[in-house]
């Protein structure tokens, strides 16, 4: 049974529609990441689930109970706020106890739960401190602790790592991953950091333009983006989308011609694609490599070289002005201004129809 179910949730602020008939099912103990650009409605959706915002329509179900009309405190959800929202005048212990006291949990039980959470989060030494006396990372833990002690059915985290510095962020990410093994609840995390979403989530929900664009496992979304938006948004550096047309033919797979004239044989099944239809050829950097002129599909000029140590991203400009990103070995010798040959791995290429719909290499064959 689904832990959380959203059915046709929609929401407007005044005349502006921000969520358009969003439906989603989250399995028990699943970790879901909401990923999307700023303003895509991630926080709004999270807040509707929490009860901090009322949807204009639709239903929210949690473990078989319809919760969209319940007050936030009665929904069985706990939330970790982006800016933590710890009560500044209460000690860490009081912060964690507040919700439990409101719920009428007996004192010994409260103490036991706090002790347990403090142990797991390694904040035992800070229990009598006030939030103002703690570092950002410690406050973050307290905020998580405050959620854990409530033993909710669903955790909601709005950009939980965005206020931490890079080192702490990586560490906390690992801790979050460990933490979720310990809690018996589903978890939804809002982020616009895709690395965070990819590493932590069982499934990702990509939001844009008021809608869910795609729901799937990180690898699924990376390998089979449902549309051009998802393809560009997930993955770094972004996928290159090269304008192309479908070539006539009787092959099983589509062959396309780039604007510059080069032809690429893909492994995208051609049924349904119209001859001569305009499409975009989607290429991830790892599917474009540097090659000697005779083996190359295209010629280009290097405009930027990004060295990451273990690999190098080469941004190259084709004769017709199209920019394409290729991946090369870490010790690559290319320099800006070099003329290079690019070899396209057509087997891994994606095609996007004019309306954005993605088509992918046939995995079965």
């Amino acid at each position, binding site marked *: 049974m689904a832990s959380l179910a959203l059915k046709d949730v929609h929401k407007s602020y005044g005349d502006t529609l921000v969520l358009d008939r969003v439906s989603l099912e989250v399995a028990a103990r699943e970790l879901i990441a909401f990923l999307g650009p700023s303003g895509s409605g991630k926080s709004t959706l999270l807040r509707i689930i*929490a*009860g901090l915002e009322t949807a204009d329509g639709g239903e929210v179900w949690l473990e078989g109970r319809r919760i969209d009309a319940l*007050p936030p405190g009665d929904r069985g959800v706990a*939330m970790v706020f982006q800016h933590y929202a710890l009560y500044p*005048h209460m000690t860490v212990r009081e912060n964690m106890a507040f*919700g439990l006291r409101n719920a009428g949990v007996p004192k010994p039980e409260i103490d036991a739960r706090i002790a347990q959470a403090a142990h797991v989060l390694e904040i035992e030494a800070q229990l009598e401190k006030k939030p103002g006396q703690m570092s950002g990372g410690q406050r973050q833990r307290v905020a998580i602790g405050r959620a854990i002690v409530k033993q909710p059915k669903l955790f909601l985290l709005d950009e939980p790592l965005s206020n931490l510095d890079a080192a702490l962020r990586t560490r906390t990410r690992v801790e979050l991953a460990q933490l979720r093994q310990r809690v018996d609840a589903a978890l939804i995390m809002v982020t616009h950091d895709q690395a965070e979403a990819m590493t932590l989530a069982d499934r990702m929900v990509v939001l844009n333009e008021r809608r869910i664009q795609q729901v799937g496992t990180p690898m699924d979304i990376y390998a089979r983006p449902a549309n051009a938006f998802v393809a560009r948004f997930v993955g770094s550096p972004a996928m290159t989308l090269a304008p192309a047309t479908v070539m006539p033919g009787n092959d099983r797979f589509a062959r396309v011609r780039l604007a510059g004239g080069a032809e690429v044989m893909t492994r995208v099944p051609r049924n349904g694609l119209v001859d001569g239809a305009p499409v975009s050829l989607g290429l991830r950097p790892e599917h474009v490599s540097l090659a000697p002129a005779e083996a190359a599909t295209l010629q280009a000029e290097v405009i930027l070289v990004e060295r990451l140590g273990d690999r190098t991203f080469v941004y190259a400009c084709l004769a017709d002005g199209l920019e394409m990103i290729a991946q090369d070995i870490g010790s690559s010798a290319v320099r800006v201004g070099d003329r290079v040959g690019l070899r396209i791995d057509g087997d891994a290429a994606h095609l996007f129809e004019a309306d954005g719909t993605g088509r992918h290499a046939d995995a079965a064959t």
Partner: protein
Amino acid sequence: MSATSPRAGLSGPVLALLLVGAAVMLTPMVWTLLLSVKSNAALLGDSGAALSPPYTLDNYRAILADRLTSRWLLNSLIVSLGTTAGVLVLSSLAGFAFARLEFPFRRSLFLFVLLGLAIPEQAVILPRHQLFATLGLHNSYPGLILPGLTGSFGVFFMTQYFRAIPRDLDEAALLDGASRLRLFWSVLLPLTIPAQATLGVFTFLASWNDYWWPLISATTSDYYTLTVGLASAQMNYAQTSGLGFLMAQAVFASVPILIVYIVFQKQIVRAMAGTAVR
């Protein structure tokens, strides 16, 4: 470096100016204090006698011996503390409501409150006098306290302060299952303590020093506040024949204020510097 620090490195001229200023402020106070510890008789001929002994506490003894003076002191305390408590309670509740609750005509009501800031007491004192006479409130504590509770400033001040508290906290409390009352009492109110202190001190001082309304409302000496009472005790010739006693009264009346200032120094300075709302 030291030149930029506000404490260190006061230049000579600035220091001199400050010293002169301090002297100008302190002289009358010291003079009052000196006069108050001289006997009336000794001052009758020449008030310059205050500069030399013998000194005596007789004037203060006389004040304390007077049953009425202690009554007035008590009245002032009741009225000032009552006003302060009332203003704090009303302003906090109204401030919370204006800042956090949704109710019909919220904006218009708030504007209405702000209008109150623009109405001077003088403009309403006659109708108020008549109203209180009709209600039979003159010569009573409610009669002395109630007008002080009608000020708009406290409501405005607390509304601004509540507004400055991040809404995240409300939402966290909501998710923690807190009722509205619990949110107000356990989460938001404790965070307004600096504002309460500032507002409380100013309300107390204003109420303590108020002269006009108690002068109008309290017509029997039993309900005089200290300010009115002391003024009434001045005989026509007080300036000449009762100078020491007069000055002792003045010192006596300002002691509570002095205590308030000393205890709440921090809040007063912060309020003066305009940083009370973080």
